[in-house]
């Protein structure tokens, strides 16, 4: 629509709209085969010239002629029936008929020849910034936004007050609230660039990467375990998590970030920090551990790689093209397999973070293993005397047939013996305590000596210097086949890029690596490197657009394209197309710096608007798609948990490291897969339980109940945007959950020594970041009196006050 408005006006609009609709029908149904790039049967329907010229059967469209070949084909009157395998709905056929009859107008004729039809597949052309004399406009963003607001008969909202902006900024960049003191510090700062200074200060905080890294982890379906019925740990997945956080903190240029994740091993094989990016391929769901299913698993893995890559970096829903040509986007099935072929030689591997140390080989672990085996046997030998003695005693107390059942090998037991054995197994079990009581002093001493050896063996035990990642099996890739009509071995496909985006083949992998260190670097195909280079071309139509749109989405709660991982024709159109393209070109010009984009957005008047909704907003911009205000938002699951810790003074700010497992009640872990002692290994140090949520164990089959009810993603598929639901279980969690009570109680213990008014003020300042108003103070006093009656003590009453404030909307929502 926006494009049309530039080209047409008044009476022409109707015809143009018809044409636009007709072209869209062609685009959706015909272009995947009949475009300039593929032109099956010689037919190219992507331009008017192509349609008039036609293919091997002659002209497809004869303007004005309702018997044009194209119309015959879609009506499916004869053997020529298109599209294959389905028929267009009658209203679409009718649209095409009217369009041809009225002259087959082609309103996109001024697009460069060979340019794709769909907007997001065309290269970014930097638009001119609208001129505006309005003093509201602070930067180019505002100029674009204001132009659109004016067009829609809307005005921007007044700016939010300073305290609101500071809180909003802290949550936006750090995912944590400020303290009241930090707010005051800003309000006191009279320097003209006080705001810019605050933005810079927060961008350089280590907590920034924890907030923005979390967005990225959602996209790459990160978890610490693999999922399915054993849900095993993915060794060293957390190294990738820390790599993502560090990358955001360092403001790693986005093109470099992509290259490291797709092919760090091929670009910079000797730099473990870069190679760690390939953990991207390892942190998704997988069933690598299933026996006898390597073939199926491989297919699923390659599908996951292809779909996730398309979705995360290019905002494309490639999944549809796995089984057939994409129905909506010009992505033929062949392209899907060309892309998949790029990953065909990639296999998971362990990345040695300290390459010079040990050739990727953990010598210490190796000898420790031998020592442990030795110790295990020794313990068995020491205990043998007592164990067999006690066992014999217990056995002698049982009936003879039970004894016989127990002593028969399992395989040889009769069904009756089986039942007896199961029933009585516990009666002959020998416990550690029983053995301990029976040991001679000399035997006990030998065991104690072993304990000493064990402790020294593990005294310096730490996570090993490895990360997870991929590399190629060699410089020859296994062939990739595109299935044809359900046959597993179909047509062989060579690696390449998406045709609609210019296509191109991946050249044969010439391996020019040389062994430069003590470690010979393995040969590789360089396919993923080619892909990364192709995706990170500065003029790739999607890469920059998709990323700036994601950044915009995370700042404003909604993207300029609201379907942030679908830039195809089934996705939403951009509300501000020129702004999107301006941001995309700016992103590339500013060397793909994500922090630069934050600075642009956060210093705009658009972002600083108040979140108040007015009757006019409600009527003209109910969804706030035109940005007539700032969208109030609920805290995300992690922000909420982290804020409770922060506000009550309990947050442990430690960064990085292996994932933390917190203790949960039996009710909470009900239904968890596997044995608790293996699945939920609670950290020994309670201070770890109060760390930021991003560092908690993310089990793929079990979300922390508190995070789950607040819409934390399932981490099975890439999650480009979270739900923001409002439910009764959320209320129950905040109201009755042990977490809130525990943090509230810790906080109340500090408040109890204060005079009552001071305690109330302190609670208000810590949780709501402001002083209580007079009526609030009076109400709180009354409340404490009431709760002193019901609970009988001051501390319990204060816990209630804190619990109440933590449950308030003021705490949960960002204005």
């Amino acid at each position, binding site marked *: 629509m926006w494009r049309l408005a530039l080209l047409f006006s008044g009476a022409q609009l109707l015809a143009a*709209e018809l044409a636009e609709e007709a072209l869209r029908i062609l685009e959706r149904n015909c272009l995947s085969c009949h475009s300039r790039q593929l032109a099956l049967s010689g037919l190219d329907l992507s331009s008017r010239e192509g349609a008039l010229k036609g293919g091997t059967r002659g002209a497809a469209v004869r303007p004005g002629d309702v018997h044009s070949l194209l119309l015959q084909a879609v009506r499916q009157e004869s053997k020529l029936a298109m599209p294959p395998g389905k028929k267009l709905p009658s209203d679409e056929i009718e649209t095409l008929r009217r369009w041809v009859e009225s002259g087959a107008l082609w309103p996109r004729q001024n697009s460069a020849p060979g340019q794709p039809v769909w907007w997001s597949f065309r290269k970014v052309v930097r638009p001119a910034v609208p001129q505006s004399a309005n003093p509201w406009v602070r930067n180019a963003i505002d100029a674009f936004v204001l132009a659109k607001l004016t067009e829609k008969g809307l005005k921007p909202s007044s700016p939010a007050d300073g305290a609101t902006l500071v809180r909003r900024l802290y949550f936006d960049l750090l995912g944590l609230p400020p303290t009241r003191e930090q707010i005051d510090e800003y309000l006191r700062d009279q320097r003209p660039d006080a705001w810019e200074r605050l933005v810079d200060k927060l961008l350089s905080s280590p907590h920034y990467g924890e907030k923005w890294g979390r967005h990225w982890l959602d996209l790459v379906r990160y978890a610490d375990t693999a*999922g*399915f*019925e054993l849900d095993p740990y993915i060794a060293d997945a957390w190294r990738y998590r820390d790599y993502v956080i560090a990358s955001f903190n360092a403001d790693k240029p986005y093109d470099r970030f992509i290259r490291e994740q797709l092919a760090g091993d091929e670009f910079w094989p000797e730099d473990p920090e870069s190679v760690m990016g390939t953990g991207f391929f390892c942190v998704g769901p997988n069933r690598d551990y*299933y026996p*006898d299913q390597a073939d199926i698993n491989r297919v699923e893995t390659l599908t996951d790689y292809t779909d996730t890559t398309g979705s995360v970096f290019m905002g494309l829903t490639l*999944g549809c093209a796995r089984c057939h040509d994409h129905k909506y986007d010009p992505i033929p099935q062949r392209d899907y397999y060309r892309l998949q072929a790029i990953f065909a030689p990639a296999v998971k591997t362990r990345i040695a973070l300290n390459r010079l140390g040990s050739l990727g080989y953990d010598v210490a672990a190796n000898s420790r293993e031998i020592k442990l085996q030795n110790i295990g046997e020794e313990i068995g030998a020491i205990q043998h005397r007592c164990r067999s003695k006690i066992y014999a005693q217990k056995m002698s107390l049982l009936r003879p047939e039970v004894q016989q059942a127990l002593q028969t090998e399992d*395989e040889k037991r009769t069904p009756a013996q*089986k039942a007896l054995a199961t029933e009585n197994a516990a009666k002959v079990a020998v416990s550690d305590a029983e053995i301990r009581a029976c040991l001679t002093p000399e035997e006990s001493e030998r065991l104690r000596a072993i304990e000493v050896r064990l402790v020294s063996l593990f005294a310096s035990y730490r996570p090993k210097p490895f990360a997870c990642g991929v590399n190629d099996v060699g410089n020859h890739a296994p062939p990739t086949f595109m299935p044809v009509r359900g046959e597993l071995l179909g047509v062989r496909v060579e690696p390449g890029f998406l045709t609609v985006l210019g296509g191109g083949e991946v050249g044969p992998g010439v391996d020019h690596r040389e062994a430069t260190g003590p470690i010979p670097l393995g040969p590789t195909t360089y396919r993923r490197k080619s892909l990364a280079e192709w995706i990170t071309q500065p003029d790739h139509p999607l890469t920059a657009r998709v990323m700036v749109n994601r950044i915009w989405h995370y700042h404003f*709660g*909604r993207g300029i394209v*609201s*379907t942030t*991982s679908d830039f195809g024709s089934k*996705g939403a159109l951009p*509300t501000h197309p020129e702004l999107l393209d301006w941001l995309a070109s700016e992103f590339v010009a500013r060397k793909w710096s994500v922090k630069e984009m934050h600075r642009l957005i956060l210093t705009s008047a658009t972002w600083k608007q108040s979140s108040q909704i007015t009757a006019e*907003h*409600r009527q003209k911009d*109910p*969804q706030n*798609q035109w940005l007539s205000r700032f969208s*109030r938002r609920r805290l995300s699951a992690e922000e909420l948990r982290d804020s409770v810790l922060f506000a009550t003074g309990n947050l442990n700010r430690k960064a990085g490291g292996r994932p933390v497992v917190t203790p949960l009640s039996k009710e*909470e872990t009900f*239904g*968890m*897969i*596997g044995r608790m002692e293996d699945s939920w290994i609670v950290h020994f140090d309670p201070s770890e339980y109060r760390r930021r949520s991003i560092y908690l164990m993310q089990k793929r*089959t*079990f979300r922390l*109940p508190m995070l*789950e009810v607040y*819409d934390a993603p*399932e981490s*099975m*598929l890439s999650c480009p945007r979270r*739900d923001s*639901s*409002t*439910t*009764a*279980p959320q*209320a*129950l969690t905040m*109201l*009755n*959950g*042990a977490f809130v*009570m525990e943090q509230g109680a810790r906080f109340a213990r500090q408040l109890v020594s204060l005079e009552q008014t001071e305690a109330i003020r302190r609670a208000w300042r810590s949780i709501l970041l402001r002083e209580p108003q007079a009526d*609030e103070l009076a109400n709180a006093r009354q*409340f404490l009196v*009431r*709760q002193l009656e*019901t*609970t009988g003590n001051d501390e319990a009453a204060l816990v*209630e*006050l804190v619990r*109440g404030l933590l449950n*308030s909307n003021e705490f*949960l929502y960002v*204005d």
Partner: protein
Amino acid sequence: MSTKRLPRRFDSRREFLLRTGMGFGALAATSLLEAAKPLAPRPPHSRPAAKAVIYLFMHGGVSHVDTFDPKPELARLHGQTLPPSYAKGLKTSRIDFTKAIIRGSPWKFSRYGRGGIEISELFPHLAQHADDFVLIRSCHGDAFDHAPAMYLWSCGSQLPGRPSLGAWVVYGLGSENQNLPAFVVMSDGAMKCGPQGYGAGYLPAIYQGTVFRAGEAPVLNLSNPPGVSSATQRATLDFIHQLNRKHLEARPWDDELEARLESYELAFRMQSEAPEAVDLSKETEATRKLYGIGEPHTDDFGRKCLLARRLVERGVRFVQLYSGTHLGDDWDGAHNDLLGSHTKMAAKSDKPIHGLLTDLKNRGLLDETLVVWASEFGRTPLAEGPNGRDHHPYAFSMWMAGAGIEGGRVYGSTDEFGLRPVEKPVTNFDVNATILRLLGLDHQRLTYYFQGRDMRLTDVHGENEFTHFLLPHRQVAEAKPHA
């Protein structure tokens, strides 16, 4: 630009309405506050045969040839190998179909009911209901490990992350009781599918199954925190309400803030209603006995079945019960002990299910409740080791009762060894499309926009002959399948 292209541009709750495919009409007609009640009852697409579902899931894999699909050929050829043509193309993790020997069933089968349906002696109580259910002998799939098979049958894909049947149903219909969860799950504990077997996938989290724990507080965080009296709790709730009311007054036109105020009242009501719903002491001794409550083998599953009836009675939409776990007793014990595992597991569930069907019937609830009995796969007609059977996804049995379904009939059949369906094969898609249809939902219209597609439980598959076989006669005229 046609209006058809528009509805893809809304966020959070507002977008929800549109993602549901209800479109602008619904948006205009429904206040945004209504949209904030994702479990409010919603009208079905067509007249429903049932209002609620009780899904009895036998965890671990029930051997079809030992329960509902008798194969005398197995006994006759016991100890021999299969003819090579039969073995071709079949694969599981643990046995080789060309080498493993045929194992006859250790159980006897008899005919029951008007239709003379053959059922083994493992289910003496359940067999009395042969006239109440349709037995489907031709289920088949290709997932031969537990979790993928459970995901396939519950969620329509071997990979987790898709919404489960129960989630789709409450997404489509909402719930008739706002004070209880709409989709309740009761299991024996750790299951091989984990929570994703009853998850909401890409649907909003509110649609996932809520696990009911044993005891007085079935829902997580339902009880006041330890040491907090109801007077204290009420005072704090009032305090919260006061804070939020004031906050809202300064922020007009925000439905979401208002919805959150309401969620606290709902939570409060749930705190009183849920414990009542799970209080089995309200039931008569006769009813408790009917379910086998108080007897050692049947007490646990009997309680679950009785609870299921109480929940359905109170308007809960979907109740999923699992019998068996990842760690303890399980039908999957059949790997090395067919006799022991199946004897034990059948004894645990046979009488309780009999009690459930009888009780529902006596109370007139069976007609409006669909009861489904299923397992993730069957077991190999061939032997695994000296005493077992392996997983067999290529043919197995399930049954459905209630919802006005005319019972006493059998659908589909398998070959003489029970290896593959030979007649009217039924897939997970057929079953799920049919369950939705019985609830008045059109599986093609029950969609949710995700990753560039209007996703649905049945993917690209549809209703078929099977649906029509099951559909009560009064419904046939109304159902207009698109296929």
